[in-house]
């Protein structure tokens, strides 16, 4: 007797369940990404009347646009500073808050609180603190008889502060992930190593770090992607200035598209950024599998 095929039989069911997500992904991610590549092959100040120029926008970006390369350099400095400091700091905070500590819940909330703030609010608060003439920090310095510092008007300080503020606003989130990772390490490993006479430093290098590696990898990749995509905080805090010292690739794309109406050039730059992010995501998958296999 022939059985009637039910649409939810195991063979088709997974695809049906995946369908809503695939539709959303297709409409909001895949189609815009492909259309963006298509736009990058055209030139003109209106997306509806552009001339086909092939790969000329890419050629212009690479060989003529000094600001593109400045944005690339700034982005690499920002990403390197942000990711390294975020990982180290969030690990330190996680280890500190994983210990039996008085007011531990308060400290965990205090570190997490900035994560709840909108990046625009974070930028406005810090802009007020770092303002040159009447900012809170310079007022404190003046109280001690020190000279005012143009924190956001000096090309070196502006990048330092941009990185620091970005870390301040996100480190609580990554600490929370790492605390969860630390709590999943079996305590018997520490007890056994303590019996064998291992020092806290040896325990950190030989137990904590290897066991935490999958979680650390997640933190590295998440902070890396977040850093590459940073826009709103910098837009409000410095808008790429002073000069172009904090002009990141996303600001460069925005400026070309919406201030200079060079949509093709902006599309080409954002396609290149998408390629970089795709490579990073691929690296995450590859490393994730290797780390999982090793542990």
């Amino acid at each position, binding site marked *: 007797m022939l059985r009637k095929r039910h649409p939810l039989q195991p063979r088709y069911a997974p695809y049906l369940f995946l369908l809503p997500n695939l539709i959303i992904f297709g409409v909001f991610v895949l189609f815009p990404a492909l259309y963006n590549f298509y736009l990058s092959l055209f030139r003109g100040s209106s997306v509806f009347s552009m001339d086909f120029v092939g790969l000329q926008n890419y050629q212009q970006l690479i060989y003529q646009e000094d600001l593109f390369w400045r944005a690339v350099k700034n982005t690499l400095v920002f990403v390197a500073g942000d990711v390294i400091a975020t990982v180290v700091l969030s690990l330190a905070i996680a280890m500190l808050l994983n210990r039996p500590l008085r007011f531990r819940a308060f400290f965990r909330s205090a570190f997490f609180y900035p994560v709840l703030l909108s990046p625009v609010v974070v930028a406005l608060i810090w802009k007020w603190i770092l303002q040159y003439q009447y900012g809170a920090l310079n007022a404190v310095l003046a109280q001690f008889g020190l000279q005012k510092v143009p924190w956001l008007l000096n*090309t070196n300080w502006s990048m330092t502060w941009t990185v620091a503020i970005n870390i301040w606003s996100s480190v609580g989130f990554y600490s929370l992930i790492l605390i969860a990772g630390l709590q999943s390490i079996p305590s018997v490993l520490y007890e056994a190593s303590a019996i064998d006479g291992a020092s806290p430093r040896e325990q950190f290098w030989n137990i904590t770090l290897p066991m935490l590696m999958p979680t650390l990898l997640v933190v590295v990749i998440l902070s890396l992607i977040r850093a590459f995509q940073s826009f709103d905080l910098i837009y409000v805090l410095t808008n790429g200035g002073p000069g172009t010292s904090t002009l990141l690739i996303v600001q460069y794309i925005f400026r070309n598209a919406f201030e200079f*109406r060079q949509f093709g050039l902006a599309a080409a730059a954002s396609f290149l950024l998408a390629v970089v992010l795709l490579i990073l995501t691929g690296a995450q998958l590859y490393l994730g599998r290797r780390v999982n296999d090793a542990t």
Partner: protein
Amino acid sequence: MHKTSRLFLWVALAALLIFNLGASAHAQAPVELRFTWYNDGVEGQVLRGLLDQFEAKNPDIKVVVDTVAFKDLHATLSAQVEVDKGPDLARETEPQRYYGKLLDLTSYLSDPKSFSTVYSAALLNVLAGTQGGITGYPLDFTSSGPFVNVSLFKKANVAIPSDTNAKVSWTEWVEVAKKVRDATGVPYTVAIDRSGHRWFSSVLEYGGTFFDKDGKFTIDTPAFRKAAEMLIGWHKDGLAPLEVWAGGGSGYAAAADFFINQQVPLYYSGSWQVSNFDKVIADKFEWKAVPNPCDVTCTGMPGGGFVIAFKSSQHPKEVARVIDFLTSKDIAGKFAVDSRLLPARLDLAKDGLTYPTRATDLSTFLKAVTLTSDEAFRLQNHPLIQAVNVETRDRLSQVIVGEITLDDAIKKIQAKMDDLQAGKK
């Protein structure tokens, strides 16, 4: 009552009811027009008052004014217009951004021929652009120029040089402003809007030109270098607030705020600030507009705002009725007087307007208009004015913060303009 009469009465009552319902529905749903606007001073309030008058006379039209910050105007409006979701009308300084998307009102206006007699041909050409027709109207005329904080000059016991000398150079202005700063303890000497447009006036005052004999942009001139070195020097020596010109992209502190907060005795901006200062400063301190600095020439940079209509509008006839109203001589005059702006209508400028306050400052700017050089008009009306403005502003900012040299900046501005003129970008 006779049966037929009763029937007639019922039919009449029903017809009256239907008519009233229809009429009230019509009265309840006037055509709504969206008008994107930015404010320099009190013009928004003045416009609203005039539109209220219009709506009272034209109950079938309602005009909703959406006010945006000037620095967000181009990005917001461009994005909306690009996808044909723009407003019906907008106040803009750069109609050329929307060529191809503007509505030709010629067939809807009550008297389109009068436009060519009451507005300057150059300004109408800016509106017509590549598509032709009447796509809006010039709202106001502006001239760049300096302001001084008279109270600070008095406090410092320093005479305002333009009171006794018709031609005062930039060097003289900065010297006296420095004396005022030193005597009063204010943090800065001079502030200038972060704008290529405003700074170009100093290039022109030093006798600069922007075009070669073929009409191509030529950036590297002695006047351009002299004006650039002056600006860079102000920042290097701490005479001008770094917050203004060190800003990135369109993010920077407004130079006007330093003047309003009495942190600088000399401020270079333009006639549109008169209404703003009249409202914001009021009688907190004494200020006035002074003539443009003079070197080889005494010119400022001309400019002005436009009201433009968009092709995507579903109500072109109603848009034209609003424009008919706003461009009428009485209403345009009232708008200019109440907003403390220089009128764009030539007949109003010729007849003269009586401003209730700040008449002297506005007449200083009216005089500045008569001193505006041909080169300034040529530059302002060039299709690539916005590009050269932005490129110059951003490159000079890079020089000021020490990222590139002036030589590099000049080369990069020239290269950009060459590419744009060759149609490469």
